[in-house]
């Protein structure tokens, strides 16, 4: 790739108009474990594979699906440590917002801010882009939202999306299964089916994570027991 001549510095455009570091960051995301999100009428579900390098690892301590505020959560694909940095910034920003306006931050405002941070890291000296794409799900005054944020800082609202290794097949699968009047329960089933599609091996309640937020405005991770129940419904 002649492009690689232009990849030494983040702030240099290649002749084709790309910032090569961002392309590479997207590669890092595409190598990560699949994560997906589905927006239903009355809530949103996030799900991810917990792909561990070794069976000796204690998977119960891994937290890929995390809450940002009481009613907003996120999942990532790509480099875990990078996602933690963004999670911390997102949480802090949400609290500063409350400090100023005494109102919960709207999901779109939070996403805009996170995306803005990610963009800064594509235009500053001495830093590299974040090697993660995020799926942010939240239920606020305007209803349910699902946003994807990429290493470049672009963000998109989705009805359903998949990121990471199996994103192409995942999105095709979701396109077929998605309907605008899905209820949250249907969405959870569809999410599990989509994960199963691309999963190497057997899906159990210990090697995936699922998070939901519904019109009760409370984001929560499903416990392994709850995940097991949903999985059995989906068999």
């Amino acid at each position, binding site marked *: 790739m002649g492009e690689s001549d232009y990849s030494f510095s983040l702030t240099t455009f290649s002749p084709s108009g790309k910032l090569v570091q961002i392309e590479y960051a997207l590669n890092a995301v595409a190598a990560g474990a699949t994560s997906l999100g589905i927006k239903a009428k009355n809530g949103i579900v996030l799900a991810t594979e917990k792909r561990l390098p070794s069976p000796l690892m204690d998977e119960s301590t891994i937290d890929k699906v995390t809450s940002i505020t009481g009613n907003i959560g996120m999942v990532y694909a790509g480099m875990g440590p990078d996602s933690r940095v963004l999670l911390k910034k997102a949480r802090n920003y949400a609290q500063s917002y409350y*400090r*100023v*306006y*005494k*109102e919960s931050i*709207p999901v779109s*405002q939070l996403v*805009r801010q996170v995306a803005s941070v990610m963009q800064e890291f594509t235009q500053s000296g001495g830093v590299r882009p974040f090697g993660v794409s995020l799926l942010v799900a939240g239920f606020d005054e305007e209803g349910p939202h699902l946003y994807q944020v990429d290493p470049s800082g672009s963000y998109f609202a989705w009805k359903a999306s998949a990121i990471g290794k199996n994103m192409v097949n995942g999105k095709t699968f979701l396109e077929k299964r998605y309907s605008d009047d899905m209820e949250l329960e249907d969405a959870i089933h569809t999410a599990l089916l989509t994960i199963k599609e691309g999963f190497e091996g057997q899906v159990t309640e210990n090697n995936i994570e699922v998070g939901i937020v519904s019109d009760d405005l409370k984001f929560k991770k499903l416990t392994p027991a709850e995940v097991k129940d949903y999985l059995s419904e989906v068999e």
Partner: protein
Amino acid sequence: MDALGLLRPAASVSGLPAAHVPHAASGFALGDHAGRAPAAPAEGPGVVASASSGPLQRRFEPYQNNGGTVLAVAGKDFCVVASDTRLGLGYSIPSRKVSRILKMTDKVVLASSGMQADMMTLHKTLRMRLVKYQQNHQKDMSLTAASQMLSNMLYTRRFFPYYTFNVLGGIDEKGEGWAYGYDAIGSHEKVSAVCSGTGQTLIQPVLDNQIEFKQQWGAPKVDLSLEATVELIRDAFTSAGERDIYTGDYVEICKITKDGVEVEEFQLKFD
């Protein structure tokens, strides 16, 4: 609201004998009579000697009290924010008609008394923040959000305050009318009726008695209508105008209902 007594307007700003004003620990002394040496020597830049020692140095006094009274009275589903329009300075009247009111949104109105310069800057800054909020959120700021933001903005100037005494009034997301009273550094409280400024001590007791039915035993608490509230406010200003030299000329009254903000004006005595 008035917890920090040192920020109470002291009539000493230009020419009148200074009431005793306790010195702020940080080194600047509000209401320090220009030219007279402060009681505690060696407090910050420009403040020099005690009466017994050498040359006196004139400090730059950053604050001025331009007087005026503002109030906000909330009803069940409306709020009325009013202020007089006199700009005072010592025993003079530089202007009979200045506006102390900022219409923040169709549902929220702010009125500020104190120092005109700080009031104008505060209002300008607020206006900028309101536009930014509108652009980001695609909707106007709610009363709760505006009240918290104002408090925040005032506190960011904790060590060189805006010399403004604010009242905020409006209708919240549920359609109820509420008012907020502030001190100069952002301490605020949600209430039904509050007033601030040079006429505060004259009008607040009346509002407490007539709106909140305080110090009345046995009288049934009734919700006042918008018209009754406006009548009460007119009387309050007329009375305050009689006794407070800084209150007078005109009164601007903003009536906030679910249909928006309506402004009316009436004249007080020019003396």
